[in-house]
Structure formats: C-alpha cells, structure tokens
C-alpha cells in the first residue's frame, strides 16, 4: 500500500485534503462576496444577515429548541441509564436495542408518522416547536445511550451509590451529588451532540412546516444564494464548535471510548 511509500502517501493525503478543503474554501469565499464580479471581498453579507427578514427570530427559535432538547434529553436519560446500570443490568441489551431504533427509522418516515399519530393532539404541541423538541430527543437516543453507557461503565457505580445511601442520601440526592459529577464528561458529550443535532435538523421541521433556522436558510436560498450559503456556514460553524468541544472532552478519557461511542451516532440524525 501507499503507506510504505512516503511520496505516494503524501499524494494520497493531498488529494483527500483538496477534496475536503476546497468546498469549504469556496463556501467561505462565497460568503465574503467572492462570487461577485469586479468587487473585493467584504464582510457585508455576514453583517447584513441580521437585517434579513426572519433571521433573528428563527435563529432564536433554533437555539431555544436546542436548549430545551438538551435539558429534556438529560433529565430523561441520565436517571434511566443510572437505574439501568444499578438495578437492571439484564435489561441493558433491550434498552440499547430500543435506543438504536431511531437508526432504523429514517427521519422522513418519523415525520410522516407524526402527522398520522398525533392528529388528535392539541395544536399547541403538534403545531409548535415542542413536537420538534420531543422528536429530537428521540433522534438523539443512539449516541446518548452510547455516551452515558460508556461513562457509567467506567465508574464503580454500585459502590458509590451504596456509599451515598449508607450515609443517608436519598436516591435523587445520590444521583445528583454522586453519580452526575462522576460522569459529567459523558453527560456533556451527550448534551453537546444533542444540541448540534437540534440546531441543524432540517428534515422533520421542514416536512411538518415548522419554522426553524435551517428551514429559514432553505427558503432564503430560493431568493438569495449568498445569504443562504452564509446562513448555512453559520449553522456549520456553530455545530463544529460544539463537536470540537466533544472531541476535546473525549481526549481526557481513554482513547477508545469516544471513538466507539462515535461510530453509531450518525444514522437517523435527520439529514
């Protein structure tokens, strides 16, 4: 293979680097007005974004959705996973299987099912961003399971909780003051990945005709390519910032964990 030949390997790496970097360069160039003829580069598209109709509202909506999704995701999953590890180790396979289900059900199909399943539900839930929060928590289950499972497996959970309980802590107190601080890296990665997912999700929001930042970006694209590309780059930079944070967090742990928890994370994130 090329790995024996430094020159061949360098050529391979340069070609891959070109494939991955040129599009990013092109997109950044576009957002700086590089596609306009006879004009220098400018920041005016970036600064002009804020005056675009609907930009601020929809960005705020998406940030709100992301925040609520993370809270709900962790409030639901951290106690569940701790309980599972502590009291129901035999159910782990089953719960893992359930958490991986969103991988097998494409986001388009979930969106289609929502229309049929919640017809009789109040409009305040199904016609608002709340339904997106509820579904994004579901879409986040595969990587949340992996992350929390890895975190909980790495600590002597039973001993810690028993120690806390024997000193008089109730179960919620033991969870909050003993378990949570010991798996905070795992909780942080799960939360950050959930936020990145909720910020960028397009499919379900678009098909349910709800307004979020990605949906707004798509609509902007039909009128003004520069604005849409700039908004898309904003989503991109925000989620990359979050993802870099995860890989930074992961470096503190054993090298194996973040990668194993990373590999199943993508299917079903609704692209």
């Amino acid at each position, binding site marked *: *293979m*090329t790995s*024996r030949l430094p020159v061949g*390997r360098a050529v*391979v*790496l340069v070609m891959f680097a070109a*494939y*991955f970097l*040129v*599009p990013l*360069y092109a*997109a950044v160039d*576009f957002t700086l007005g590089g*596609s306009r003829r006879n004009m220098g580069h400018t920041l005016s598209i970036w600064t002009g974004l804020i005056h675009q109709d609907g930009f601020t509202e929809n960005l705020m909506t998406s940030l709100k959705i992301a925040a609520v999704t993370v809270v709900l995701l962790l409030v639901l*999953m951290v106690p*569940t996973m701790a*309980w599972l590890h*502590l*009291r*129901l180790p035999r*159910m782990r396979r089953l719960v893992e299987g*359930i958490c991986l*289900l969103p*991988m*097998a*059900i*494409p986001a*388009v*199909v979930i969106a*289609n*099912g*929502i*229309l*049929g*399943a919640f017809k009789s539900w109040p409009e305040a839930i199904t016609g608002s961003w709340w339904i997106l929060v*509820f579904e994004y*928590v579901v879409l986040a289950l595969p990587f949340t399971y992996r992350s929390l499972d890895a975190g909980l497996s790495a600590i002597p959970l*039973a001993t810690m909780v*028993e120690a806390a309980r*024997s000193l008089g802590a109730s*179960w919620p107190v033991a969870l909050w003051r003993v378990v949570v601080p010991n798996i905070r890296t795992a909780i942080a990665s799960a939360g950050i990945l959930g936020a990145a997912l909720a910020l960028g999700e397009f*499919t379900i929001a678009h098909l349910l005709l709800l307004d979020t930042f990605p949906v707004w*970006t*798509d609509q902007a694209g039909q009128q003004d*390519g520069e604005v849409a*590309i700039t908004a*898309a*780059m904003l*989503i*991109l930079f925000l989620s990359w910032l979050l993802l*870099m944070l995860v*890989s930074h967090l992961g470096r503190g742990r054993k090298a194996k964990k973040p*990668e*194993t928890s990373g590999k199943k*994370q*993508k*299917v*079903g*994130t609704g*692209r």
Partner: protein
Amino acid sequence: MTAVRVDAPAGADTTAPAAAFRFRPGRRSRSRPLDLLGLLPFAVYVGVFLGAPAYAVLTAAFQDDQGHVTLSNVTSALQDPYRQAFTTSIELSVISAVLGAVLGLGLAIAVSGARRDGLVHRAVTTASGVLAYFGGLPLAFVFLATLGPQGLVTKWLDSAGYNLTQHGFVLWNMVGLVLVYLYFQIPLMLLVIFPALDGLRPQWEEAARSLGASRFQYWLRVGGPLLLPPFLGAVLLLFANAFAAYATAYALSTGTVPLVPIQIGSVMSGNVLAGQQNIGNGLGLWMIVIVSVVVVAYTLLQRRTARWLR
C-alpha cells in the same frame, strides 16, 4: 426483609441495617419486579414519540383512503414511479457506500502509517469526527458554492477552458450526488474503521512473519479476514446512512431528484393521486424494512468484531 426497599425510586429513608443488607455480595445484581418501574418514564416516552409514529406508518400502510384494509399501498410502492425511486435510492446508497468505504479504508491505512500522536493522524481523526456529522442542509449549500452554476470551482474550470455544464455535470444527478455524499461517507468510514485498524496488533504480524509468512500472506490469512467483518459492517452502515438521507438531496435539487425519501416528502406535501393518500406510508414501510435489515446485519458484524477488538 421485604420492608427494606432502600433504593425505591421515591427515595425511601435508609436505615443502617438496610444498607448493610445491600452490601451483601450477589444481592446487588438481582433485579426485583418493582425495579422495572424505574424504566417507566423512558418506556412511555419512547412509546409515544417513536412507537406511535412508527405504528401510525405501519398501520396506515395497510389502509386505503377510507381506512379499509388493503395491500395496494405496499404493492404500488414497488411499482413505477416509486420503483424507479427505489432503484435510484439503492443505486446511490450502494455506490456512495462502497466508494466511501474503499476510499475511507485507503485513507485510514495511509494515515495509520503515520505516527499515532503526529499532526496528520490527529488532524484526520478530529476532522473525521466533525465531518461525519456534516450532512443535511449546510452540505448542500457548500457544494452549491463549489460546483453549482456560480460555484468557485465551476468558474476556475471555466476560465481554464472546461465548461462543466456543457459536459452535463449537475450536482443533483447520480454523479453529483455521489460526489456530495462522499463528503460525509468517507469521514464516517474513518470513524468506524480506525478502532479496527488500531486493534490489529503488530504482534500478530510479527508472529506470522516469524513463522515464515510474507507480508502478502499475512494480509491474506490474518489481517484481511480480521478486517473483513468490520469493513462489511461499515459498508452496511454507510448504506443505511445514505439511504435515509433527505435534506442534502432535497436542497440540491429543490425536491426533484427521484429518491425514496424525497418521494415521501413530496407525498406529504400533498403531491399524490386520489385514492393513494397512504402511499407515503407504504414507501415508509419499505424504507423501515430495508434499513432495519441493514442495521441488524451491521450490529451482528459489529458484535463479531468486538470479540477480538479490545
């Protein structure tokens, strides 16, 4: 003893003897029926927000517009024009999965020759961790800025005397979509295959070599067979990934490319013949079937790999 439910979810008071009781070995891992109540919130949540939509799709797939039982959605989902959509979707997913897996493996091998803590290895690992999540809408716009009609590379090529459009290149046909999908398929392949490559211990190669095997024989008899399950598993994962993808193809083609997810979206926006209102559910049913088979096969292959990957 039955009174000592120290770790009931409600947080009953703990007494010292109870705690001592809990420390008895062997007791810890046995679960009691009431413990299952702890899973209730999770079960209800998943049942409502994943189970109910899935159930709605699966039942509606077997109903006509009036709610009578019928097989027509399930069968006409496999006839034209939807048959064409399945062919195109599967073709796109297979090509992008196989190409992504092969190119990703090549890159992984090229990189694994580099020093583990070196700059190249670190850069590629971090970048693939980030890029594997990069799909959806932003990816479409990034490629429009690159190879779209006004794209930067399109203009470069144009001034070099090569007009992409005249040569029939568009981002929303098969070639264009494969080119775009590889942008997330290759990084995903790296994420999946790096642990397996790192798990191949140098001692195994040394052992084979010291027994007289050539480098080729080592790869044929030891390395290859070990890497085959994770490689095939990765191809399946990449297939499922591309098959379910909606946003990228939608944004590139404004919904005109004939892929199954796009067709479902189009049905949902009311673009459907009378008497076929549930055709979207029929298509959804087949998507679930295909992706489930692929994901289950992937999980089995992954489990096989986990046996030696430590």
